[in-house]
């Protein structure tokens, strides 16, 4: 017996293929559905930590001086730290969601299609940006009694620059998703074509974040109407719109695969 892997003959494999195929297909799609729901963890822990416990809704303003920002971190204390731990925990679940979209896209494009990879990598990097920003803000919130206000301000600035100026990863992910949706030539597309245009709008709105380092007040500051409310509002809107359609797409693809398997 031991720990050696079970070796099957090609004949045994062929038998397994025909008898267990529907079971395997159902298993695959069950995993895909669970992974898609990863977005609930991302949004729940992300918003709970970022907005709820850290109180970054809106965040302390870009024009605040070092004492103002350090004061906020001192006042918020442990709840800000817990909020950032939650954000860092929730971040990676975004790539689970993206991995499912990547699989759906791979069914739309051909085997050499690059959009599914763009979707997956964009998701992974967006998750990484979320986690890294949370870690930087968490560092700023630790040992507040021994950190100078200038250090806290520098870390806080760094977190925001990391969070905002890296928008191109997410925009490319959304462009990949949008072009894939438009390439779907089924009579009833897996995801409606208008969703692609909502993705393009979100990707284009993100570009406003390039202005963030240059304006400490107004709509383009990191707490501003465009750079914060419009950009993040659209980001969560696209997650909320895509997820139910992706769920339905999985059901259709599962039915197609089960029919093909006999």
């Amino acid at each position, binding site marked *: 017996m031991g720990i050696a892997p079970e070796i099957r003959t090609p004949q045994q494999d062929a038998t397994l293929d025909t008898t267990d195929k529907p079971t395997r297909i159902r298993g695959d799609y069950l995993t895909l559905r669970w992974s898609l729901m990863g977005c609930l963890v991302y949004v729940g822990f992300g918003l709970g930590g970022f907005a709820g416990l850290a109180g970054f809704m809106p965040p302390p303003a870009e024009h605040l001086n070092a004492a103002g920002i350090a004061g906020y971190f001192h006042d918020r204390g442990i709840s800000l730290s817990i909020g950032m731990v939650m954000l860092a925990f929730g971040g990676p679940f975004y790539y689970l969601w993206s991995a499912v979209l990547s699989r759906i896209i791979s069914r739309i494009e051909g085997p050499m299609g690059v959009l599914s990879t763009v979707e997956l990598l964009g998701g992974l990097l967006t998750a990484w940006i979320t986690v890294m920003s949370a870690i930087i803000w968490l560092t700023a919130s630790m040992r507040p009694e021994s950190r100078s206000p200038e250090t806290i301000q520098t870390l806080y600035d760094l977190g925001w620059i990391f969070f905002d100026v890296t928008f191109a990863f997410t925009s490319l992910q959304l462009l990949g998703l949008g072009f894939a949706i438009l390439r779907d030539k089924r009579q009833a597309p897996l995801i409606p074509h208008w969703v692609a*245009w909502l993705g393009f709008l979100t990707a*284009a*709105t993100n570009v406003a974040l390039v*202005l963030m380092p240059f*304006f400490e007040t*107004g709509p383009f500051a990191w707490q501003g109407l465009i750079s914060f409310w419009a950009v993040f509002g*659209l980001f969560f809107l696209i997650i909320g719109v895509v997820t139910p359609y992706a769920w339905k797409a999985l059901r259709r693809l599962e039915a197609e695969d089960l029919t093909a398997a006999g």
Partner: protein
Amino acid sequence: MAALTTDQAAEPETRWKIPGIEGVWVLMAGDMVIFALLFGSFMSARMKDPGTFEVARHTLDFDRGGINTLLLLTSSWCVAMSLHAMRAERREVAVRWLGFGILGGFGFAVSKVLEYSAEISAGHTAGSGDFFMYYFMMTGIHLVHVLVGTLVLSVFWVRWRSGREVRGLTGFESAAVFWHMVDLLWIVLFPLLYLVR
């Protein structure tokens, strides 16, 4: 032709169809909401400091603003005429109208760049207070829309002029609708920045 006949059979002629690609309307609706947020934000900032905004407004070139408005309105009209001609299967006429429409877009862009250059030479930049931040950012974002629109219209112009077969007008309708939105946004931007006292 056969496909067209089948489509017509499926959809009664009385049924109204939104011009262009549906999704482009979603994009434009969102775009207009974002501009509306900017307009509201500008008005709110103006109410807090009307004196400074009024002084800054007087440094703008009203005549150039008016000329730009005329350029965009005329360009929009030319694009509408082009679509009209295309629907009547008068391709050469459509190409000519579209060419004039594109020239209007280029004219607007060149005029805007000259205006920016004059403002910057006078020492006004996006960092010279709230009014100029809004002025440069809102007109700058609008200019990006003008450039995108001009580029898209130019693609249609090149394709039509090359004599390539035209498969439906949905794509061009979308471009034309987008171009009208660019026009509409300027019609709000112009009075907001240049005229409102």
